[in-house]
């Protein structure tokens, strides 16, 4: 096995600016498509076992030092479609990282293990008998240790978190500190713009440098256009390397007997559809879920400064189980741009009054256990995220908004802003049913954001009803694996990064 060369800072990445030839031919034992939660973990695990690993990332390499802590700028440079990726009707912003490290670079660091009742659903409904709590626990233990996952300490709970905790206690609701993958949090509140001083344990400062230390090579600016297969077996990929001005720098072909697809739950199915592979079940791209979330803001009598301190501090799990509502509430900080997007206090003077008092606002993020009703499609030119909040899930969303409003009021808020396209302000308990009950499940009525797309290449035992096996290999193409959130057969209610890390570790261990 070759020498391990760990680098204390930075990451060795081949970029478009390094390319001097118009076509590159490479060979590897494994080519990994995507460098986010699934791809980085798989790359490290396989490189550690002596495999020659090449990681291809469509997005750019942006070193931490270049993060600006300006949200709009970060959307443009670090996110998919410059932060403008939406569903077809435009009322759901689907935020995904599109840079080396993927969404792990821009997430809020929140870590949950897959809930037990979700694993039980997977065992019962998808034949994933081996994915038990006992089977996965060692993987969770290991990735949590590697990524410094810990309960937020008191100093990591910002003013808004303390307010929410007090309100939950008043209501008798279960409230807990969130777990996060972070070392010595700088309390900047800029998680969604990337962690400039490398405290968030994203793939950029953990598994990717570890993979490189074991010999893996990373190519940024490199979009895979097609997965190659012959005789039912994966043989590699074809890609295009694009300069930052949009011009093509080179084409690339990687020949490899194993391909790990980890481009995320939107891009992975598109790549399979473009390649015409692994879709005997016609399930590729189907079953999209995304935890459509809302940021419910409220105004408090005392300053909160919601941009100060750790972005996410505590959560209410009182309603997590589907039998109790199927949603969680997380206290969430935010900056001015996000704040301007989420509430509708009225146009003109009312809006400017709302913003002028921004320091008095606090937010609650709602996450619901949505059904897998969406679909990712590719029409030959453009992707399409066909997802509307289903009528089955709309009552859950309403319950989550109502609970958020009650919690804000119990925490001392004087006004709660329903994140809708029309003005809906709650000032007391009596307003809740009217303002939330009056919402309609129509496009563009709620201002939803998804940070957790999932489910488009679902795992399952039945090749007619699923795309991949429990070991991540596709039913149809030997040597072609999926190792990202598109695996998840159902939505998991909670932030999925730990689930993806654990599954990717397990998949790679079995591959190696």
């Amino acid at each position, binding site marked *: 096995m070759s020498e391990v060369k760990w680098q204390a800072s930075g990451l060795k990445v081949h970029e478009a600016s390094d390319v001097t030839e118009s076509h590159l031919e490479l060979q590897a034992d494994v080519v990994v498509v995507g460098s986010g939660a699934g791809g980085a973990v798989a790359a490290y695990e396989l490189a550690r076992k002596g495999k020659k690993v090449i990681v291809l990332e469509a997005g750019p390499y942006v070193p*931490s030092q270049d993060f600006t802590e300006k949200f709009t700028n970060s959307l443009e440079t670090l996110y998919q479609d410059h932060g403008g*990726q939406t569903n077809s009707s*435009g009322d759901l912003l689907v935020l995904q990282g599109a840079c080396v490290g993927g969404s792990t670079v821009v997430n809020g660091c929140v870590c949950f293990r897959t809930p037990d009742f979700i694993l039980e659903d997977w065992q019962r409904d998808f034949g994933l008998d081996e994915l038990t709590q006992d089977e996965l626990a*060692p993987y969770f233990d290991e990735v949590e240790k590697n990524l410094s996952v810990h309960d937020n300490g008191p100093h990591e709970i910002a003013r808004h978190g303390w307010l929410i905790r007090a309100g939950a206690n008043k209501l008798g609701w279960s409230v807990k500190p969130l777990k996060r993958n972070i070392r010595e949090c700088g309390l900047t509140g800029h998680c969604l713009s990337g962690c400039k001083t490398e405290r968030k344990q994203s793939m950029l400062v953990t598994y990717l440098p570890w993979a490189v230390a074991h010999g893996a090579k990373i190519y940024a600016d490199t979009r895979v256009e097609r997965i190659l297969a012959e005789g039912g077996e994966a043989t590699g990929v074809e890609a295009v390397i694009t300069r930052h001005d949009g011009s093509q720098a080179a084409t690339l072909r990687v020949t490899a007997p194993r391909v790990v697809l980890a481009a995320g739950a939107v891009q992975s199915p598109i790549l399979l559809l473009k390649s015409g592979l692994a879709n005997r079940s016609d399930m590729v791209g189907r079953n999209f879920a995304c935890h459509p979330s809302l940021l419910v803001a409220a105004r408090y009598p005392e300053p909160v*400064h919601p941009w100060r301190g750790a972005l996410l501090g505590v959560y209410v799990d009182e309603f997590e189980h589907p039998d109790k509502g199927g949603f969680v509430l997380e206290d969430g900080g935010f900056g001015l741009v996000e704040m301007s997007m989420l509430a509708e206090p009225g146009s003109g003077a009312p809006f400017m009054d709302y913003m002028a008092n*921004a320091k008095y606002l606090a937010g609650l993020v709602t996450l619901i256990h949505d059904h897998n009703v969406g679909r990712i499609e590719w029409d030959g*030119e453009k992707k399409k995220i066909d997802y509307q909040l289903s009528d089955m899930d709309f009552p859950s969303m309403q319950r989550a908004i109502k609970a958020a409003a009650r919690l804000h009021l119990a925490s001392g808020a004087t006004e709660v802003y329903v994140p809708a396209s029309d003005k809906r302000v709650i000032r007391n308990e009596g307003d809740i049913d009217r303002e939330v009950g009056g919402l309609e499940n129509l*496009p563009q009525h709620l201002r939803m954001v998804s940070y957790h797309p999932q489910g488009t290449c679902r795992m399952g035992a039945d090749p007619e009803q699923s795309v991949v096996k429990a070991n991540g290999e596709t039913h149809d193409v030997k040597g072609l694996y999926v190792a990202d959130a598109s695996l998840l057969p159902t939505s998991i209610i909670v932030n999925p990064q730990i689930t993806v890390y654990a599954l990717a570790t397990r998949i790679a261990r079995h591959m190696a």
Partner: protein
Amino acid sequence: MNSHLQSRRISAVWQQGMARRRFLKLGLFGVAGVAAVAAGGFALLRRSPLDDQPVPPWATGLSAAEFHLFDRARQALLPVIGTALVHSDKVPVVQNVQRTLSYLDPVTRKELGTGLGLFDNAAVFSHGCRFVDLDDAQACEFFDRWGEGSVIQRTLATVIKQLVYSAYWQEEPTWTPVEFDGPVSDRWGLPYLGNAPMPESPSMASTVSEGDNV
């Protein structure tokens, strides 16, 4: 014309558009495509005095009508009288909108442009003039009414407002009056932690032995 009738009128035009094109490609800011089709019957319903006004030389990514629409929206949506907030003419709001729109793919950008034309011209039904010629109170009331209207109306009102809002609040001069801290890591002198140390060998429990099969 009241909002209900206006919604019906717009929906009717939308249906005509569907019949003509039968196929829509929707993209960034979602229903830009829907709006574009609907807008097909609305172009240039009424001239505006602003049509003869020049646009700044930097506005190469916006049509003249789009520039005037966003500039009018800026004035109406971001009033600062009686507050300590920075006047919107002190920050490059419309330039920032233009930059955001530059990220749209050409098809969606064209469709959104047509949708913006719908928004501008639809005010002729309710007010007898284009949106760009409404006074501030009328313009805000127009936005609020569209926020309660049909899908197309809600979409366009939301898109325009959010473009304008984010274009304003992303600018540093707007932060001080509301005590927003902006970037802090360099100012606080936070040291870089670098890469995490290499992990120890995996625990036995999560190590798959040779021959394991799943």
